[in-house]
């Protein structure tokens, strides 16, 4: 029997590899959606509970959105091209200038009472963490870097910014508004 097992070892190993790849692919399909039905939030912060934050943000998801996917920038190690397709970004002040050309200008009226990251008089980011004022939006889900301000930005190429860039829907704005209400 042992000889038989050894003679067929390649079959057992092959099947194990096929199983891992096949089911990983199927599970990815189960929890994926086309760009138009998905809002992706990337957080450039020390830690984020992506699953819990995604579940929370999906509670009031706009019509047509199947998935809200929250992940850290570390994920881009595995999907560098995908990180450019995010809709919402949480970025600390130290990196904001670097990524600024990728962000969309914000219509201040959509976020009354918010403080903004500005460049040339135009609002680009919303303050979500400020060590001085003690502000830390969604601190249950997101661990911010200590002593550094953090902002919420929108990808200028997002397909969910409504009239800001002539997108079909404004789901990213609605989900950002939901995020800003989180404790």
């Amino acid at each position, binding site marked *: 029997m042992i000889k038989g097992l050894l003679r067929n070892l390649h079959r*057992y190993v092959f099947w194990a590899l096929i199983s891992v790849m096949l*089911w*990983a692919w*199927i*599970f990815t399909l189960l929890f994926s959606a086309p760009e138009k039905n998905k809002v992706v939030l990337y957080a450039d912060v020390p830690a984020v509970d992506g*699953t819990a934050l995604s*579940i929370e943000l999906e509670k009031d998801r706009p019509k047509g959105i199947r998935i809200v996917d929250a992940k850290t920038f570390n994920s881009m190690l595995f999907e560098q091209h995908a990180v450019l397709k995010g809709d919402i970004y949480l970025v600390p002040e130290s990196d904001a200038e670097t990524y600024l050309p990728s962000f969309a200008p914000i219509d201040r009226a959509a976020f009354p009472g918010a403080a903004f990251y500005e460049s040339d008089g135009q609002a680009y980011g919303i303050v979500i963490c400020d060590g001085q004022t003690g502000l830390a939006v969604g601190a249950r889900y997101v661990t911010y870097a200590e002593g550094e301000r953090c902002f919420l930005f929108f990808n200028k190429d997002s397909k969910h910014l409504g009239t800001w860039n002539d997108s079909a829907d404004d789901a990213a704005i609605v989900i950002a508004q939901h995020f800003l209400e989180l404790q």
Partner: protein
Amino acid sequence: MKHCELYNKEALLSMHAKKKRAGIAMLAVAAAGLAACVVLCLLTTRTNYGTMLWATVGTSIVSGWIVIFLSHAVFEVAKTGERHMKMVEEGERKTVGGRFEKTNEVRYIRHGVTLRRVRLTSGERETMLVLYEPYAKKVPETFSGEAEIVNDFIVAYEVNGDD
């Protein structure tokens, strides 16, 4: 003289039944494994995603391994055995005589078919024949007499009275 047939119709039928049973068992395990994986997929939520993925992969691997085991340890052995028996049944028999001596040389052909070599000494001439290993115990270690062969396989033998 004692005549002994090594192969019979019942052995062929039992080999066929064994092959059929193994095939059914393989299908049943594969279907059960697949059904379990589908159920696990349906029970997957965002919170249990990781656990369910590994549970599904584990279920798939184990059920697949059982199918592979049944395939090489039972199904293919029975299939090759059945083919071998049919070959023997349909083949043309020749009779050879002399002194037969079972060797310790056991050869694995494939899919679990093993053969034992038998040395036939007839006068000065030495020939090598083979025995289907599962039937090797039915044949004495050495004997003088005659044997019926099909493609060098001993299918029946007769021991001389003085042996």
